[in-house]
């Protein structure tokens, strides 16, 4: 009993500390925030250094895993967060867009000989289009049904890629070109930053950081705009939003298209580094992992989501000695997290309040089934 209250008290204090920091942040003038942003970007650029790597991943090359899985998961999670965290659309087939981006790079790069930068733009367009094509028929569905349909689409794309021999069939595509070098000998801290070769993963990592920064800026802008408010309204209560004059269907499509573009951009970049790809790179498990990262970090809160993606990607790499058991532990952690901290590691304040109220904006599970013991409170709270 005592132990329970003291731990609750500690958590309360910790939460209070978080609130204080958060308030300070909200009141900080613009120039102070820009300093912090710049510091964070510098930190991200210094991250691949060996001294950090020797602690973070003694068994594998730190810069390599910083690109994949860590950086890749972070960008994908940011993209999925738009769909799941902000608009509240449960997407279990997010990997499909990543696959479309990857295949766009592979096909246009090997067959047409297009440039990485052209393909990046075209790929983002293709993915936005495929997001809309997928969304148009399915976004009338809600909740679990949408989840299942997106899962179905994700699998259809993977199986179709596997069965279509003209795009490589089960063996996939190899010989995907690297991005063209922007500069042969421009060096920063001894790294040829703009030379995209086979050996050094760091230039790709910097490219990924640039992509992530652009994506974060855009997503943050959207979140604070009319679009973001419309998404929040849809997430909380779609019918109410519709009645208030929010064109819900159009905004849901927009969320899908934006999420798909981000996933697709990451797919293009990933394919440009990895030389070859095959349909098995786009398993359902990857969709589930990214969704888990989003929920684990605190669905809807960008820093939380990035933290979640980092944890999900990094922990299995760090603890390679547990290599066989890492998925087992991952599964158990997911269940435990949903039981003990369903709002995620770092929830936004708004979402925390929503969770306190009950549903977290996704429709409740238990409300329909009050047990005999909980029935009294149920009625009292109405």
């Amino acid at each position, binding site marked *: 009993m005592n132990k329970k209250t003291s731990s609750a008290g500690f958590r309360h204090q910790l939460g209070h500390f978080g609130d204080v920091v958060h308030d300070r942040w909200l009141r900080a003038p613009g120039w102070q925030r820009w300093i912090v942003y710049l510091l964070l970007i510098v930190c991200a650029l210094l991250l691949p250094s060996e001294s950090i790597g020797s602690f973070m991943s003694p068994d594998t090359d730190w810069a390599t895993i910083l690109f994949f899985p860590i950086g890749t998961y972070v960008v994908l999670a940011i993209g999925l967060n738009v769909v*799941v965290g902000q608009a509240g659309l*449960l997407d279990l087939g997010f990997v499909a867009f990543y696959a479309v981006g990857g295949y766009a790079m592979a096909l246009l790069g090997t067959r047409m000989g297009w440039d990485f930068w052209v393909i990046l733009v075209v790929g983002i367009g293709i993915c936005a289009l495929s997001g809309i094509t997928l969304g148009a*028929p*399915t976004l*009338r*569905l809600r*909740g*679990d*049904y949408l*989840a*299942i*349909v997106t*899962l*179905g*689409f994700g*699998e*259809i794309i993977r*199986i*179709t890629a*596997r*069965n279509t021999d003209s795009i490589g069939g089960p063996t996939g595509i190899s010989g995907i070109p690297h991005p063209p070098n922007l500069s042969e000998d421009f060096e920063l801290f001894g790294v040829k930053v703009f030379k995209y070769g086979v050996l050094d993963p760091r230039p790709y990592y910097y490219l990924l950081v640039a992509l992530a920064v652009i994506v974060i800026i855009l997503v943050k802008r959207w979140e604070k705009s009319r679009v973001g408010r419309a998404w929040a309204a849809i997430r909380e209560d779609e019918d109410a939003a519709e009645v208030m004059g929010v064109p819900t269907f159009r905004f849901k499509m927009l969320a899908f298209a934006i999420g798909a573009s981000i996933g697709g951009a990451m797919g293009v970049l990933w394919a440009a580094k990895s030389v070859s790809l095959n349909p098995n790179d786009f398993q*359902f*498990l990857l969709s*589930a992992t990214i*969704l*888990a990262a989003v*929920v684990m970090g605190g*669905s809807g809160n960008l820093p939380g989501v990035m933290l979640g993606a980092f944890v999900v990607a990094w922990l299995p790499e760090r603890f390679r000695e547990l290599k*066989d*058991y890492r*998925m*087992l532990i991952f*599964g*158990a*952690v*997911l*269940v435990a*997290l*949903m*039981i003990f901290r*369903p709002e995620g590691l770092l929830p936004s304040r708004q979402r925390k309040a929503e*969770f306190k109220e*009950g*549903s*977290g*904006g*996704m*429709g*409740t*599970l*238990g*409300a*329909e*089934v*009050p*047990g*005999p013991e*909980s*029935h009294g409170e*149920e009625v009292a709270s109405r």
Partner: protein
Amino acid sequence: MFSDFINQFWPASIDGLAFGSIYALIALGYTMVYGVLRLINFAHSEVFMIGTFGAMFVPFTLGIDSTLTGIALVGVILAMIVAGMLASAGTAIALEQVAYKPLRKRGASRLAALISAIGASIFLQELFALVVIPGVFDRPERGRIQMGLPRLMERSELFSIAGHPVRVDQVVVIVAAIGMMIALDALVNRTKIGRGIRATAQNPEAATLMGVDINNIVRMTFLIGGAMAGVAGALYLISYENTNYYIGFLFGIKAFTAAVLGGIGNLRGALVGGVVLGLVENYGAILVGSDWKHVISFTILILVLMFRPTGILGESLQQARA
């Protein structure tokens, strides 16, 4: 292509019926849990997977390596079905207690339940690949490799339809599945527990006021749904003679498709949906090639959800007359 269809119509029909019966049995679990809790039990696929291994345990411990006949064969098959039911029902109840009940108590979001189910699903798969299959089935280092069942019975022809043979194992699967369906229908429509399940599905609060112990009913729902998946696992194993730790994924989605197709929440709908899906999938496989079999099911799922989300039969457990 069309002459292919004519030639293969009967074999595909028989195979489709056998597969469809298995889908239907798994679909019952989805549909019952959905009817009572409005929850898609995502981890139900693993309940099926564990059912196949529960059934595998019987011939494995008995050390059977040749075909059986007569009483011995019937005994082993029944024992396999019972073992599958026990393993699956146990898993389903454990799943409810560990992964869903704490969430239910707190009135957590559907998203939380979904993530919890995905977590439980990954956990159970890995548990089998890493611990159970290498340990219990004595296959160290081979936990992820498909495990075969030694042939239990001579696959002789029982009778033929339009010149195409119907094998014993196919008949066993179809007959056992139909038997289970009849038993379940009687259970839900004629017993006290069945009345409790229907009452809870219709209106949980009113059911509570009428003295129904909802937690017990939820437990029974998971138990019955799990047992059906266990039967499906045993029948699948007997007929197709192999299984692996990952087998639940595809079967789970297909059975869910069957449940949606028939009308989720509707028990007879699960049967109809399972059989229709099994048949359509096999006919489609003749027409466009068996590589595309899974794509056909996924497409059906999406089309049904888009155009007739209430499914073929529509009426559900909630609306069924008490």
